[in-house]
C-alpha cells in the first residue's frame, strides 16, 4: 500500500515537471527517487545510481557500489606475488593487459628488477592493443548510451575481436590474459603473430576513419553530449580524475608521456586533449587516442628488438619449471612501492607494501574507474536522467574495477 501511494505521489510531481521542465521554481514538487541499477542496461555492470529527481532534473545523485566487491586486496595478502597477477586481470576485465602491467611494474619497482628490452616492447605493444580494444568498447557503449541501438558497439566489437585473437595467440587467453610476469612477460609471441598484427594495423586506419566519419560529426551525438557533464580543468584535477576524463578537461597529462614506463620513452606519440571538458570531449579524446595507439603500435612493431623476454628474479625461492618462466614465489625486500601506468581508463596504480614475506603485506589498487566516479554527483546534479546516463557512460567505468 505504501508503494502505491509513493508512486502516485511521484507521478503527480513528475508530470508537473514534464509539462514545464524548464520553468524553474514555479511549481514546487516533491523529489522522486529513481534507482538506475543495480540491474540496468546502462550501468555497465552491477552498479547502482540513486537519482533524486525533480521531474527529469536531477537534484541529487548517490552511488551505491560493492555488488561486485570480491575483496581482492584482502585475498592478495594470502597469495604470493606471482599468484596475485590473475587478480589484476579480473579488476578491469576489459583491459587485463594494463592491469597486469601496473601490478608487475609495482613489484619490479619494489625489487628493483630491470626488464629486458624485448619484454618492454611486448608490454608496450600489448598495452596499446588493449587500449584500442578498451577504447573501442568505451566509444561503442557510449554511443549505445546515447541511444544508438547496438550498432556502434557491434562495429567496435569487430576490431576488438581481432585484437583478442592476437592476445589468444600470444598467451592463450582472450579476456583474463595473465600475460605479464614479474621480470618480463610469460612467453614470447609465436612467429606468426607479427604478420597478423601487421595485417590488423593495416586494416585499422580505415576503420578509425569510418568511426570518425560516423560518430564525430553525428549531429545527434553532438546534441546529446556537447555541453553535458562539463568538468573544468581545476575540478578535474581536484577530484583526482585521470585518463581520458582528465584529458577531456584539457589537462595534458598522460603517464606514458609524463613518466614513461616500458618502451614509451623510445616511441613518438601525442597526448590528445579536449578543450571543453564535456562528455563530447572525453569521447573525442578516446577517438584520438585510438589513432595515437595505432601510431605507437606501428613504431613498436618495427623497433621490436630480439632477446629474452624474461628477467630472472634474483630472490626467487620457488622456480618449478627451470629458469624459463617466472618464479612462483620470492621474497622482496621490506619496503613499499607505488607503480602506476596509464590504463585506458586512467591512472592505474598498485601500492604494494612488503614486509619481506612471500605475499604482499598490503596490496592496494588505485583504480581509475573508481576514482573517476568521484565527480559524478557534481556532473549529474542539474542534468536530466538521459544526461546522467551519458555522463556515466563517458566516465567509462568497469564495475569489476570499481568494486574490486
Amino acid at each position, binding site marked *: 500500500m505504501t508503494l502505491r501511494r509513493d508512486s502516485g505521489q511521484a507521478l503527480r510531481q513528475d508530470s508537473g515537471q514534464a509539462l514545464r521542465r524548464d520553468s524553474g521554481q514555479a511549481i514546487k514538487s516533491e523529489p522522486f527517487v529513481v534507482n538506475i541499477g543495480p540491474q540496468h542496461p546502462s550501468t555497465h555492470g552491477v552498479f547502482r545510481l540513486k537519482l533524486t529527481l525533480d521531474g527529469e532534473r536531477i537534484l541529487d545523485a548517490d552511488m551505491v557500489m560493492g555488488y561486485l566487491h570480491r575483496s581482492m586486496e584482502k585475498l592478495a595478502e594470502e597469495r604470493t606475488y606471482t599468484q596475485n597477477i590473475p587478480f589484476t586481470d579480473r579488476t578491469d576485465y576489459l583491459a587485463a593487459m594494463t592491469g597486469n602491467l601496473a601490478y608487475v611494474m609495482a613489484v619490479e619497482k619494489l625489487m628493483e628488477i630491470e626488464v629486458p628490452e624485448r619484454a618492454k616492447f611486448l608490454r608496450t605493444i600489448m598495452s596499446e592493443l588493449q587500449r584500442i580494444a578498451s577504447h573501442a568498447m568505451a566509444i561503442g557503449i557510449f554511443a549505445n548510451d546515447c541511444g544508438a541501438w547496438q550498432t556502434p558497439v557491434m562495429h567496435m566489437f569487430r576490431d576488438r575481436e581481432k585484437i583478442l585473437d592476437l592476445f589468444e595467440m600470444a598467451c592463450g587467453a582472450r579476456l583474463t590474459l595473465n600475460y605479464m610476469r614479474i621480470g618480463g612477460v610469460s612467453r614470447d609471441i609465436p612467429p606468426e603473430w607479427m604478420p597478423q598484427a601487421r595485417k590488423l594495423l593495416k586494416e585499422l586506419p580505415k576503420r578509425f576513419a569510418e568511426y570518425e566519419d560516423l560518430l564525430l560529426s553525428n549531429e545527434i551525438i553532438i546534441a546529446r553530449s556537447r555541453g553535458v557533464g562539463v568538468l573544468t580543468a581545476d575540478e578535474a584535477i581536484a577530484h583526482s580524475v585521470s585518463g581520458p576524463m582528465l584529458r577531456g578537461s584539457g589537462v595534458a597529462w598522460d603517464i606514458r608521456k609524463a613518466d614513461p614506463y616500458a618502451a614509451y620513452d623510445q616511441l613518438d606519440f601525442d597526448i590528445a586533449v579536449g578543450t571543453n571538458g564535456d562528455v563530447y570531449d572525453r569521447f573525442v579524446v578516446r577517438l584520438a587516442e585510438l589513432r595515437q595507439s595505432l601510431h605507437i603500435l606501428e613504431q613498436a612493431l618495427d623497433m621490436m628488438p630480439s632477446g629474452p623476454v624474461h628477467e630472472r628474479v634474483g630472490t626467487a625461492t620457488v622456480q618449478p619449471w627451470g629458469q624459463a618462466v617466472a618464479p612462483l614465489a620470492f621474497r622482496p625486500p621490506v619496503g613499499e612501492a607505488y607503480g602506476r601506468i596509464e590504463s585506458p581508463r586512467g591512472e592505474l596504480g598498485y601500492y604494494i607494501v612488503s614486509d619481506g614475506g612471500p605475499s604482499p603485506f598490503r596490496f592496494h589498487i588505485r583504480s581509475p574507474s*573508481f576514482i573517476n566516479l568521484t565527480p559524478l554527483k557534481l556532473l549529474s546534479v542539474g542534468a536530466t536522467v538521459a544526461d546522467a546516463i551519458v555522463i556515466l557512460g563517458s566516465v567509462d567505468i568497469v564495475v569489476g574495477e570499481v568494486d574490486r
Partner: protein
Amino acid sequence: MTTFVTGFEIAGQIDAKFPGAVQDAQPEFAAVKPEKLIEVLTWMRDDDGHRYRFLSSLTGVDRIDWFEVAYHLESFQHNRKTTIKVISEDRENPKVPSAVPVWPGAQLQEREAYDLLGIVFEGNPDLRRIFLWEGFAGFPLRKDYLNMPGGQMAGLERFPGEPGVELSGRGTE
C-alpha cells in the same frame, strides 16, 4: 620523466616551513603529524614550489601496531610525485583528519579506507560504508579481522615448496 621526491627531501622542506610537523622520514615517504596534516597538505597543494594539486592515491595500511594513511601526490606543473603519510597510533579507533577539504578527490577513497580498514577521517562530509553494507560487522582489511584460532593472522607465511626460511614476525602473535 617524473621526479620522485624522496621522503627525506620533502620532510626537510616541510620541516623548514612547519617546524615539528614531520614525524618520520623514510626514503619512500615522509610522515606528518595528524594535527598538522591539513596545514601541510594545503601548503603543498598551493605553494608554488610544490603545486601537488593532484591526489593520485589515498589508502590506509594496517601495520598491526598502528594505522597509517598514505597520500601519493602528484604535481603536474613540476612533474613530481611524492608520498606523505600520516600515522594513527590508536589501534582500535584510528582517526586522521580528512583530506577532502584539500582535494575533493579524496572523498571516495576515504570512504573506501573507512569501509575496509575502519579509519575514521574526521571532517569528511559523507563518511559512510561504500562497498559493504551499513551494519557490516568489523573492517575486513584489518589484519585481525576474523582471526584464526590460536591468534594466527591472515597472510602467507611460507609458500609450499619454499625451503625453510626464517619466518618474519608476522603471523604468530
